[in-house]
């Protein structure tokens, strides 16, 4: 394989990992958000390389674009609070890191021991995963999930509006009234 291509891939991969690490170690949530944008874009480039242009663009517009705007907006709204770095939960940090390492190791082990070896990804034809093709499948085979997704989005919208709405003076909730002592006899 071409060394240049490999280099490009290497840089992309490295960007992904580094930005991810940056995300979780920055104390300022705003930095984390920016690292995440970088990460998304790098992953989006990988999608392009994997012959999925539609997904790549969706990734950039939906994730790196609108969702991140949402994040940054909320960060601004709530104030980028800097929480102390001390860990109040005993053993959380050590145990967390340990378990994650085990997890990684196990994944690798599983891949090595339990799966048939995978070949390289074949050359992808130009027409594969074109937006038109995706649209065809989406509105034929995946019509129902598509509609369901739409419904989920609608529900999320309504929910988000309701949750963030400022509540007025608290109204008594229509609950169960305390029963009077029934006459027994």
């Amino acid at each position: 394989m071409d060394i240049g291509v490999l280099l490009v891939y290497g840089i992309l991969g490295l960007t992904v990992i580094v930005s991810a690490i940056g995300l979780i170690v920055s104390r300022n949530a705003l930095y984390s958000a920016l690292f995440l944008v970088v990460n998304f874009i790098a992953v989006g480039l990988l999608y392009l390389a994997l012959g999925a242009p539609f997904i790549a663009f969706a990734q950039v517009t939906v994730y790196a674009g609108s969702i991140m705007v949402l994040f940054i907006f909320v960060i601004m709204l709530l104030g980028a609070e800097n929480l102390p770095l001390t860990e109040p939960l005993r053993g959380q940090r050590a145990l967390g890191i340990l378990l994650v390492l085990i997890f990684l190791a196990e994944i690798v082990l599983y891949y090595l021991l339990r799966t048939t070896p995978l070949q390289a990804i074949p050359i992808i034809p130009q027409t594969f995963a074109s937006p038109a093709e995706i649209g065809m499948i989406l509105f034929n085979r995946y019509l129902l999930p598509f509609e369901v997704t739409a419904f989920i989005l609608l529900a999320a919208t309504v929910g988000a509006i309701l949750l963030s709405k400022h509540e007025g003076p608290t109204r008594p909730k229509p609950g169960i009234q305390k029963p009077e002592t029934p006459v027994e006899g």
Partner: protein
Amino acid sequence: MIFGLHPLLLVTFLPLVGFLIILFLKAEQKNAIRWTALLTSLATFGASLAMLAQFDPARGDLQLVYRTSWLRVGGISIDFYLGVDGLSILLVLLTTFLTPIAILSTWSAVEERVKGFMAFFLLLETGMLGVFLALDLVLFYIFWEFTLVPMYFLIGVWGGERRVYAAVKFFLFTMFGSLLMLLAILVMGLQAGSFAWNDLLAQRQLFAQTQLWLFLAFALAFAIKVPMFPLHTWLPDAHVEAPTAGSVILAGVLLKMGGYGFLRFNLPFFPEASLQAAPYMAVLAVIGILYGAAVSLMQKDVKKLVAYSSVSHLGFVMLGIFAFTQQGLAGGVLQMINHGLSTGALFLIVGMLYERRHTREMSAYGGIWKVMPILGALTLIVMLSSAGLPGLNGFVGEFTILLGAFGSQVLNSPYFAGAATIGVILAAVYLLVMFERVFLGPVRVEANLSLKDLNAREVITLLPVLVLIFWIGLYPAPFFDLINPSVERLVALVQSMAVLAIH
């Protein structure tokens, strides 16, 4: 067929019709709701009499069988399977007989949430009838558990001060026992490939190895319901807190489900295990008789006293059942009816007093016979019936049970019956003490001086019970005619097993 319907279906589900009608009534229409409930339960009683008319007392097997496929789970058919025989017919009649009486007793006692009360009551009736009529074990279990729900609410909503505690205790205690029974039912059904009673009976050799465990699983559920010593402590709490009508049904019918369960399932399915367990069960029964009598003597609350007396009385029933003689078993069945009548009536009476004075403490009464002569006289009769006075129903049951137990080949010792006979003395002690504290002596509390005697409705509530008390006491032959053939079959079955076990 009655109106083109199978009589057993009609009997079982008629209360549900009333339940549905009540659902459509407004909560404020209290009288309409009461009348609907009363008329429904009376109609059910009528239907059960029609069932009785079609019942052939000479046959000891299952009659009026209704069977239709209901569910299929994993290749095993669960049938909607109803039927009646001599063991269950009197209990069905007792249920349909006591329900209208209990409903009538609530006429002025329950003023709050009448709609819910009556709705639950009719649901309860369907549940109880289902228990006595179901012949498919899964169906039986469904009805069995189903009765818990309305009763739970009757105690928990319309009960006394500690109603929630009592309701939860009642629910969990009985639930605990019946879960093991469910396991046993599943084991048996999966092994035999059917849940129908007669299929399982025909294949009972399949459980020959495991029958002791299965017996214990069933017995635990039934013994809690009966309740046998030492599983009885839910009963006083439930009785004390339950509303009057609830107590009547609880004592009158729900407890009988335990005894019936032993007769219907434990003895025929696991005869060897039953024979093996008989002495132990008899010991518990006798302890229950004496213990219940002693403990009830010390109660200050009338309802508690009656509740503990139930422990004592049902000890007799269990002794009769595990004597494995015809007299013992037939007496046990009849004694269940007797206990339902006399204890039910006692609870009605306590309810009538409570409605007037709003206390159940015996110290708050005294000399009531003087101010309420009608109630005094009626209570006397009921009390004596409970104490087993000859000529009244209690004696017939107790005597036949004791006679059966005395010569039982299975128990093989007259000491069981001898010790149980002491319970007859002790029963007189606690009942007379109760009667003395409440009805005799001078009127000590001023509030009691102005008590009104029973009104016509209350007399009508008690009168049918009294008629039966005398009828069974003086001429029980028709009742035994219904019971005997089925009991004969049961005894023959168990005896054949006993012979096999010896060889």
